[in-house]
């Protein structure tokens, strides 16, 4: 029995900077009729470039259609493939009902460097809206494709594109020994190239990006109790935050990364504290006998939104970072928890109970109006894309937990599927 106990306490833990993992698959489950039609012509590849196994145009088209703002022309309907601006017959694209057209090429410069060139046209005006030549190497073609998507999206919507960003999330699966194995992974925003950054036989939870996007903090139970670790993505190196008796949870970085809000129960029950990176000091921010947890920083760094049970049921409250009186933010519904500010600070998303269902709600802070964005029974952990266009969250798909995304207006929905495991607690990275 002693051996068994020792085994049970033996933690299998590995921290890696980059380990390959099974890819996520994305499926758009609800689009909008008002999406702008756009044709992305397959990019031509120069004869001296060699073999290119990245379909740049397909990645751009995928990004644009996933945003819900665009409807891309199916490749089978793209009959002529202009290589240069003077080859474009705008009337034929008008006839296909397209508003915009993208053409491009991959070529090799005399100095041996690869470059990707693209042009975006307004089909009706018959003019170029934007165009760039981006130097790259074969390994970064996928990244270049996302950059082009960002530029096209920004030109046509006026809003910065978030296709070059990343997502972090927690996975768990039951291994052959019947034990649950926990991981935190990081993938491109389109689900491509997931990498495991930490694996443990004890729970991992609450991944949180630094505002700079170079590190992720998370909660790990690897020492038999909760501790907060901060891991640098490029090296895989991590540091453990000084931990206290009781809960060490819910890390959230301030917009300038100089402070971390977190939950500790060292002085009794769960309350919000502010950790100052420079002085190493922990300052207690909330002071209630009920549960206070799940802090989130306002974009201007002045307010902390948090969940509190002080009114009997969990609701969201806001308090100045300097302390003082907390004011209640949510009024509608008997359960509102784990709020996150939109990047513009004008609204918040949260877990909102409707009847017996836990769904993602969005509260307009100006009007006080709450809208329900999702339809699941157990939706949780909403996280905004850094441009505010989409919200990623976790939902149940049958028995399994998967990630799903919804546009901030609730109109466009998509599911992210990962092979063979539970996926939850998504955290969208800031802009690069």
């Amino acid at each position, binding site marked *: 029995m002693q051996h068994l106990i020792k085994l049970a306490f033996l933690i299998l833990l590995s921290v890696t900077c980059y380990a390959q993992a099974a890819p996520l698959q994305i499926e758009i489950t609800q689009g909008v009729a008002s999406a702008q039609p756009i044709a992305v012509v397959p990019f031509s590849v120069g004869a001296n470039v060699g073999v290119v196994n990245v379909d740049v145009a397909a990645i751009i088209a995928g990004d644009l259609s996933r945003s819900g703002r665009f409807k891309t022309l199916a490749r089978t309907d793209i009959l002529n493939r202009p290589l240069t601006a003077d080859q474009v017959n705008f009337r034929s694209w008008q006839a296909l009902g397209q508003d915009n057209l993208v053409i491009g090429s991959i070529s090799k410069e005399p100095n041996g460097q690869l470059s990707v060139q693209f042009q975006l046209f307004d089909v009706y005006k018959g003019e170029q809206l934007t165009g760039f030549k981006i130097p790259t190497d074969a390994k970064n073609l996928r990244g270049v494709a996302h950059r082009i998507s960002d530029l096209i999206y920004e030109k046509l919507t006026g809003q910065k594109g978030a296709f070059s960003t990343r997502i972090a999330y927690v996975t768990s699966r039951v291994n052959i020994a*019947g034990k649950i194995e*926990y991981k935190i992974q990081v993938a491109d925003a389109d689900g491509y190239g997931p990498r495991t950054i930490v694996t443990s036989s004890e729970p991992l939870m609450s991944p949180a990006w630094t505002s700079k996007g170079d590190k992720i903090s998370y909660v790990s139970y690897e020492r038999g109790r909760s501790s907060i670790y901060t891991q640098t993505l490029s090296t895989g190196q991590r540091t453990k935050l000084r931990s206290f008796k009781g809960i060490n949870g819910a890390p959230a970085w301030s917009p300038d990364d100089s402070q971390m809000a977190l939950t500790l129960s060292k002085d009794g029950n769960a309350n919000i504290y502010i950790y100052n990176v420079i002085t190493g000091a922990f300052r207690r921010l909330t002071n209630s006998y009920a549960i206070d947890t799940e802090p989130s920083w306002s974009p201007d760094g002045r307010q902390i939104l948090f969940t509190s049970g002080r009114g009997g049921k969990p609701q969201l409250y806001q308090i100045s970072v300097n302390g003082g009186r907390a004011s209640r933010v949510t009024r509608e519904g008997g359960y509102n928890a784990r709020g996150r500010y939109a990047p513009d600070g004008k609204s918040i998303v949260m877990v909102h109970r409707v009847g017996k269902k836990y769904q993602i709600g969005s509260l307009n802070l100006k009007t006080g109006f709450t809208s329900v964005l999702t339809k699941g029974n157990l939706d949780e952990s909403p996280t905004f894309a850094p441009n505010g266009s989409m919200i990623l969250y976790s939902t149940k798909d049958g028995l399994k937990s998967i990630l799903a995304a919804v546009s901030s207006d609730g109109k466009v929905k998509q599911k992210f599927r990962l092979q063979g495991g539970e996926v939850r607690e998504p955290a969208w990275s800031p802009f690069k």
Partner: protein
Amino acid sequence: MKKLINIVSLMLLSAVMVGCSSFGGGDSSTSNGTTGTNGMVNGATTTGIDGGTAFSGHALDDPSSPLSTKVIYFEFDSSAIAPEYEAVVAAHAAYLAANSTVSIVLEGHTDERGTREYNVALSENRAKSVLDLLSLQGVTGSQVDITAYGEEKPAALGHDEQSWQLNRRVELVYPAH
């Protein structure tokens, strides 16, 4: 994979139903239960046979004692200990008070409903309810440790009330047992 999860959750469920009280390391078998009580010299273990009536194992494993119950279940969103568990907690309190060198870990858990960090705090409150009762009955604070797992370590993997009621729990784990 779904099948595998189903099978595993069935296994976990049945394990709970036959009275296996803990998955957190506190589970113990009666086969080596003589350790400590009957004495163990140079690795040899003596076991009484032919008795039949008296339980020869460790007091914590005696199925006729409330000490054999090592999981306390809770109502939704509640950290109040139901009256039916008061005798169980009292038995553990008496055992711990009588054995001041023995320590216990109270592992708090919740079902999957509600947000994760809030559930960590709720599971801590459940463990603290047990701690408060133990303290009232003479157990010293240094004997008791709490780990709040929230919904991260479910005992049953289903998404219905049947699973949820098995997951809203505090496990009483004796690390040295």
